[in-house]
């Protein structure tokens, strides 16, 4: 697919004084700091023990103190998540297209998938463990199972909302359904697809972590479970923060890909 590299800013605004602060660039940092400050205050005011809700300052201590295990386990979780997510992307896209392809498949498969997704995936981990042993495989599979559905739904929605006028361009050429899918269906549903990736990647992290909690000797899930049983709650929160950081990193990657791939769709000037 072609990519949009041009700058879409249609009209330049009058030049601004150079010393103005770029609030947009700063916003993520400011909001995050704000969140931590609020959190710290909330802990101080509510007087919750650090074995329930540790203050961020304590959590950072824990991060520093346990950096080596945190780092190793983060890598492991990152690895299983990414693997599961990639499988989910491929499978989700494929199933989404399949569902968009045929009404019979749609009618049959969709309800089953919806039902499947209303089930907490943690209930399936035992079965995966029996089949694949503990460790990486069930984590990857859980990440996959939990994250493919949003992709399916969005790809299918994207396909279902294609304007018939656009399809007609290809149909008039005697294009086969496959061609229409490839040339119109897939590109047109890309904005939906990328929207879903942002949801899917966060779910993938949740999936691999819950699987690690139940059945793994490493990974953040395992680390947090053992920390929890030791009342080392700051370490649990350190794990959660690492998860959040990894999630944000992957999200940034998705957002970057989205901008490259679907720049044509992101021309709105609303958010300003």
């Amino acid at each position: 697919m072609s990519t949009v590299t041009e700058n879409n800013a249609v009209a330049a605004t009058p030049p601004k004084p150079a010393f103005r602060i770029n609030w947009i660039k700063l916003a993520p940092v400011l909001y995050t700091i704000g969140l931590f400050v609020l959190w710290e205050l909330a802990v101080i005011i509510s007087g919750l023990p650090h074995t329930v809700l540790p203050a961020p300052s304590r959590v950072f201590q824990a991060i520093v103190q346990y950096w080596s295990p945190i780092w190793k386990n983060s890598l492991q979780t990152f690895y299983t998540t990414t693997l599961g997510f990639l499988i989910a992307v491929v499978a989700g896209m494929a199933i989404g297209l399949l569902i968009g392809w045929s009404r019979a498949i749609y009618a049959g498969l969709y309800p089953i998938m919806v039902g499947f997704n209303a089930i907490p995936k943690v209930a399936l981990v035992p079965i995966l463990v029996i089949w694949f042993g503990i460790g990486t495989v069930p984590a990857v599979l859980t990440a996959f199972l939990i994250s493919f559905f949003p992709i399916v739904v969005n790809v299918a929605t994207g396909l279902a909302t294609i304007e018939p006028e656009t399809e007609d361009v290809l149909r008039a050429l005697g294009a086969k359904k496959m061609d229409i899918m490839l040339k119109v269906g897939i590109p047109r549903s890309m904005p939906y697809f990328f929207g879903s990736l942002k949801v899917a990647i966060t779910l993938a992290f949740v999936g691999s972590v819950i699987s690690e909690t139940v059945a793994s000797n490493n990974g953040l899930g395992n680390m947090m479970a053992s920390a929890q049983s030791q009342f080392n709650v700051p370490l649990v929160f350190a794990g959660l923060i690492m998860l959040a950081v990894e999630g944000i990193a992957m999200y940034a990657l998705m957002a970057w890909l989205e901008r490259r791939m679907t720049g044509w769709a992101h021309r709105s000037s609303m958010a300003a």
Partner: protein
Amino acid sequence: MAATPAMAQTDIRFTLDWRFEGPAAGFLLAEDNGYFEEEGLNVTIDTGNGSVEAIPRVATGAYDMGFGDINSLIKFLDEDPSQPVEAVMMIYDKPVFSVVGRKSLGVTEDPASLEGKTLGAPPPDGAFAQWPAFVEAADIDTSDITIENIGFPVREPMLASGDVDAVFGFSFSVVLNLLANGVPEDDISTILFADNGLDLYGNAILVNETFAEENPDAVEGFLRALAKGFADAVADPEAGAQAVLTRNETLNLETETRRLEMANETNIRTPYVVENGFGDVDMARLSDSIEMLGTSMDLEGNVTAEEVFNPDYLPPAEERMLP
């Protein structure tokens, strides 16, 4: 609850260690047989999510009283001694911590038979938490023992299928679950930590100190009622199991009776309890156990037995005798 209270009732929010299962019968009978009401108490009994999580629930005041593991309480108070939580009545005089293995896989009742084996351990499991202390107490060579992190849902199936040779857990749960998984009873070998040198206490009644200071009579009354409830559960386990079943219809009467009986025999009605009454602790033994926990739980040494257990609310020993 239908009866009009004679006097102003005190509300008590109480959290169990776990779900409504056989061993909770004592609490439920105290409620169903009206013992709480007699004491002027209006008790709400909620299920718990492990004997560890009950502690912060009580410490933060989300619950006034609860049922949790005293060893975890020691760790909890060691982390932050200012927390307003203490134990006021001991229920499991002998803890249920154990390693359960299968004879056919070479695990016998002797702790040494664990050497060279693969053990399955759910990280939040109370028994697993005591493993380091147990290793020391029973003098086990851990150099070729493999520990696999397996969650609760897969613990017994993995032992049943031979993926691991033994698992950590509460004896009565694991044994019954293994039976449910089709392991013959005579293949099961239970290594109870308490029988092999690790002389700890088990689950106790916890109370939020602020609440207790404001309502000393209510706490006392609660414990008195509870002693009657547990006496009833020991006297008639089937009635106890029945009380559990009214709260969770999906249970099996026979299994719960069995579970309750096992808890009674092994953990509650110990020789010490038969002799001295139910609910009290031997402060020396408790101090020793804090010592022992130092190894397994990395204690800083911030707590003493007196800070953990407060016997002041206990009714006189004669009211606490078990049949």
